[in-house]
């Protein structure tokens, strides 16, 4: 780094670096909280298996009873990891959505991704297609994913026809949400009772549907997309100051929005296809991150991902312990967990929203 000849500049540089250091510290802090939440998640469960017993089971697999092995490898580990990955994916997608729509009420589901995914899954559940290659579960997830991504392309195509700004995009998205929801409701009418139960089951999100295949796919998707999100983050920061301003500074806003929507769709479509619709995380995760870390998207994106993972981890813990032996669907719990944290932060930070 070049030495600053000007002491005033040096002072400003010092101030700036302190700000950055504080932000990095906050990120680290959230990361540590996340690790603690995951450990808590791994140590809760109605079998009473403690964290120590779990770790022991990992280190000395030959001593494990079959039931305990299944609890560790098919219940605790997958559920906990799924909560982390889904929470991170949805919250990151939410942060991007709030940036490109310039709207604090936006979530990854605003433009219809989860409604389209639900439609895709419902169609396959009501009109099953059998395949030798894929399990039924995989086909449902694939259909959900295809419809979710397809909806994004449809949206993009429609908005190009009108030479769209953000408002047009949102209006088309809302139309898509309502249409898909209506079609799903129609399918429910046509369904026999057992099919109906599957539809309802699918739509209520739950990390209890995790398995290692789904985890690997989601991990890969997240790992591939995060670098692109970070690359776009400086331009996103400018976009937050106003679309016109950003464009005049050289940000190609249409391209930025298109690729961001692509990332949002991939992240949320994958998450929804695997665990169903879990709301609230994608909306409130970025907000909590923003209160803590500010509007520099280079920090806000990773912070959102970490906060989202933390929220869903904690929700997973709560969903297991509220009623012994019974699981409360995690989608209900996310609001119970997220709102107090959010409100506490709002009061603490005052008017800085």
């Amino acid at each position, binding site marked *: 780094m070049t030495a600053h000849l000007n002491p005033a500049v040096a002072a400003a540089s010092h101030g700036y670096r302190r700000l950055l250091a504080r932000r990095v510290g906050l990120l680290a802090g959230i990361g540590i909280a996340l690790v603690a939440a995951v450990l808590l998640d791994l140590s809760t*469960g*109605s*079998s*009473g298996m403690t964290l120590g017993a779990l770790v022991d089971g990992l280190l000395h697999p030959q001593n494990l009873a*079959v*039931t305990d*092995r*299944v*609890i560790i490898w*098919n*219940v*605790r580990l997958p559920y906990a990891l799924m909560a982390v990955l889904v929470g991170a994916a949805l919250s990151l997608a939410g942060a991007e959505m709030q940036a490109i729509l310039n709207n604090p009420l936006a979530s990854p589901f605003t433009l219809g991704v989860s409604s389209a995914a639900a439609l895709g899954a419902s169609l396959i559940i009501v009109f099953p297609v059998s395949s030798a290659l894929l399990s*039924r*579960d995989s086909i449902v997830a694939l259909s959900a994913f295809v419809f979710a991504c397809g909806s994004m392309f449809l949206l993009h195509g429609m908005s190009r026809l009108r030479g769209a700004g953000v408002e047009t995009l949102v209006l088309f998205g809302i139309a898509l949400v309502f249409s898909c929801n209506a079609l799903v409701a129609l399918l429910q009418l*046509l*369904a*026999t*009772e*057992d*099919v*109906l*139960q*599957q539809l309802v*089951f699918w739509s*209520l999100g*739950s990390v*209890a*549907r995790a*398995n290692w295949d789904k985890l690997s796919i989601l991990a890969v998707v997240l790992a591939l997309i995060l670098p692109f999100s970070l690359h776009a983050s400086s331009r996103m920061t400018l976009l937050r100051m106003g679309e016109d301003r950003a464009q005049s500074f050289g940000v190609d806003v249409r391209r930025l929005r298109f690729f961001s929507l692509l990332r949002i769709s991939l992240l949320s479509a994958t998450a929804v296809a695997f665990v169903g619709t879990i709301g609230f995380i994608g909306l409130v995760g970025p907000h909590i991150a923003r209160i803590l870390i500010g509007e520099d998207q280079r920090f806000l994106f990773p912070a959102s991902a970490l906060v989202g993972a933390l929220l869903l981890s904690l929700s997973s813990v709560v969903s*297991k312990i509220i*009623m*012994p*032996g*019974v*699981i*409360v*669907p995690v989608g209900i719990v996310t609001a119970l967990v997220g709102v107090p944290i959010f409100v506490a932060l709002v009061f603490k930070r005052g008017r800085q929203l």
Partner: protein
Amino acid sequence: MSKSFTRVWSLLVVLIVGGFGMVSSAWAKDVTDVLGRVVDVPEHVQRVVLGEGRLISTLAILDRDQPFKRVVGWQNDLRKLDPNTYAAYVAKFPEVKDIPLIGQASEQSVSAEEILSLKPDLAVFSISGHGPTEHSPVADILEKAGIPVLFVDFRVNPVQGTHDSMTALGKALGRETEANAFLDFYQQHIDHITETLGAIDDSKRPSVFLELLAGVWANPGHTTGKGGMGELINLVGGRNIAAGVVPGALGDISVEYALKADPDIYILTGNQKPGVMMGAGIDQATAQASLKQVLSRPEFAQLRAIREGNVHGLWHDFYNSPYNILAIEAMAKWIHPEKFASLDPQHTLEQINQQFLGMPLAGQYWISEQK
């Protein structure tokens, strides 16, 4: 060695080897469940988990003296959805209150880990309803842990399902004798119905509107379509007005459609307030009063069936239990009173109580409206 010693020794060897052979082939057995799955069930099933608490009705027949002996975990749907029956069980078997819960009353609430921690030998799930069903990830996890899962059905195809489910459960629990005895009784009564009815022309079938949990739902018109109770209506010579309209065993029809269909007979099911009070521990006066109350709902108050006095109440949970034979007989009498004049469902209930149940069914399980 003396000859007798050799003889005794050989006999012992044969007995021991033969005995081993018998035991080893009997360590596990194949049971075919309702979905056609061949499930490997251990020989002595001591610990059972019920995906739906209401499936206890099967164990009440198979383990008649101590139906809860083998139950190590169940869902809470019995307590929540049929509290009178639950109370009756608790009165006789207080330990019922302490049976660990594996879920509330829905598929999403079931905890796989809880089931695993109970170390069951067998899990019994319904193919549809309030518990984990065929595609549930819970079933996958249990299978990975080597816990056999048996699927039963009393809802979707009540008659065939009763037969297949009781057979499978009987074999799985080592109670084939009890199961067969019940099924013989069951089949005998079914045959009597079908023979008495004979071939019947559609025009001779009275139209029937069977409203499920009448008065409980905000929107009236919750009924049965193809399968389920609708199948039973068909069996006893009635014509379900919702057949062909409601696609599956359960569904809703509009008030307008019900009024236009103008059913000859109106049957309401229920088991607790705010609907029709029927089932364990309910007396006739309470049942009648609640029936009258539900009938006062404005939507259906003008039905011809009500004016002509063809209104009846039925215990709701017949739709998901092997006791559905009683519902069949009660409905037969209502729908074709002349043909089934000699049918006596009350007597059938007493026979079931005497021959198959340790804790009798005591209460008002069906009722006709008094004018």
